[in-house]
């Protein structure tokens, strides 16, 4: 049994390889983008609208509301990034009910990639809102002595973000695979259901933590809780 879908390689040329992680990611991207394109092709601005449009509006507004509740003043700016994190992770988890599917989030490469995106996005938003000096000054607060600890916290939280998602998704997949060999009938199904729940929770946690990091970076450094406060 392969621990990561990275190891399931369909095609390789040199260091360029086409593994299951990338393929299923493309599949998820196609579903998300294609579905969104189909639904939003005929959007109604009136009071009468389609069911799918209602679903999309509910999802988008819920994400925007969740971002606003965390403390971001202009949530619409971050809906694209954080909402995509949530939808990608959530759909990757929901798709596990399809036989033969392997979630890309079960790959540490994918979770690391997402965590690196958050690792880059948070300072980028912070610098854009507060300027480079204003953002870097936050690392010296409350005192200069906290600078190394803040840098370590910034790195460690990114690592924790990646490992947490990877561990949950990989473990759920591994538990189901192991149980299939031990008790092949009912128990794996129940565990799959638990895996769906765990995947949704992880998607929520991942996106909320990313929102918190971005909110901490974009807010005034004097009032924010600190780089590693939400790990």
């Amino acid at each position: 049994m392969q621990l990561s879908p990275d190891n399931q390689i369909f095609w390789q040329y040199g260091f360029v390889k086409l593994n299951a992680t990338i393929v299923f990611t493309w599949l998820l991207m196609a579903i998300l983008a294609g579905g969104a394109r189909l639904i939003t092709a005929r959007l109604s601005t009136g009071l009468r609208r389609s069911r799918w449009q209602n679903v999309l509006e509910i999802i988008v507004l819920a994400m925007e509301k969740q971002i606003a509740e965390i403390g971001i003043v202009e949530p619409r700016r971050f809906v694209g990034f954080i909402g995509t994190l949530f939808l990608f992770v959530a759909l990757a988890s929901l798709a596990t009910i399809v036989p033969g599917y392997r979630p890309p989030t079960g790959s540490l490469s994918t979770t690391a990639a997402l965590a690196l995106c958050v690792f880059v996005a948070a300072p980028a938003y912070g610098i854009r809102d507060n300027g480079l000096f204003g953002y870097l000054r936050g690392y010296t607060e409350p005192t200069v002595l906290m600078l190394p600890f803040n840098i370590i916290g910034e790195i460690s939280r990114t690592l924790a973000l990646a490992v947490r998602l990877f561990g949950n998704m990989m473990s759920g997949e591994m538990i189901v695979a192991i149980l299939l060999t031990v008790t092949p009938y009912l128990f794996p199904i129940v565990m799959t259901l638990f895996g769906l729940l765990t995947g949704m929770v992880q998607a929520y946690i991942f996106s909320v933590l990313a929102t918190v990091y971005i909110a901490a970076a974009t807010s005034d450094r004097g009032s924010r809780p600190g780089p590693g406060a939400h790990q």
Partner: protein
Amino acid sequence: MLIDWFTVTAQIVNFLILVWLLRRFLYRPVLDAIDAREQRVAAAMTEAEANKEAAERERDVFHQRNEEFVRQRAALLREAIREVKAERENLYAAARREAEDFRTRQQEAMIDDCNTLKEEILRRTREEVFAIARKALADLAGANLEQAMVDTFLRRCRTMEAGERSELQAVLKSPVGPVCIRSTFPLPDHQRQAIEREIGENFNYGGRFCYECGPDLVSGIAVSMDGHQVAWNITDYLLALEQGIIDLLLDHPPADGREATAAATGGGTVMATPPSSQGADRHG
């Protein structure tokens, strides 16, 4: 190794592409649609609010106009009632005036009719009485009425009281004009001569005489001199008869005093009438 850095790089690129795609096809269209709908709802709410305010203004204006209309109607009604009352009073007054005028005209017409009737009765009575008396005297006593009246007139002149006589003598002593003998019937010459002789003897008058004949004396003879008159006729009879007839017509009791007066005069009257109203009637 759990991390494949090519896969990491590819996933980063994939994720960024996915972010772009979803922002392009999901977030922006959905949020734009929501914004457009909210704007439409807000516009509709604003329009509804404006319509509500306009309706409230219209309602207030309508209420004001309605109240003003009610006030004007009440004022017009009061004015109409006042004018109607005034017009009614005017009509009543005009009707009363017309009724009063009509009643007055009726009374005047009735009085005229009464006077006309009274004169007609008096004239006819006079004629009838005179004719009956003449016929009765001629048939029963073989006497002539005119001659008897002349004789009686002459006897009255002879038997006149001294005071009256002296008063007439004083008048005839210096006459202004001739003594005028007026009678109902034409006097023949011998009667004229008898009257002239009697007046000349009794009142010492030697002047001229003139004679008039008219129906108003009613079978009588009158001597006029300077506003004084000595008459002998049946006027009092006729007046008593006239009053009796009038009383009968008006359903009044007969005037006893008038009958008593006519009886006391013995059926005739000799009047010496002064020119002024202070003079006393002379009854023979």
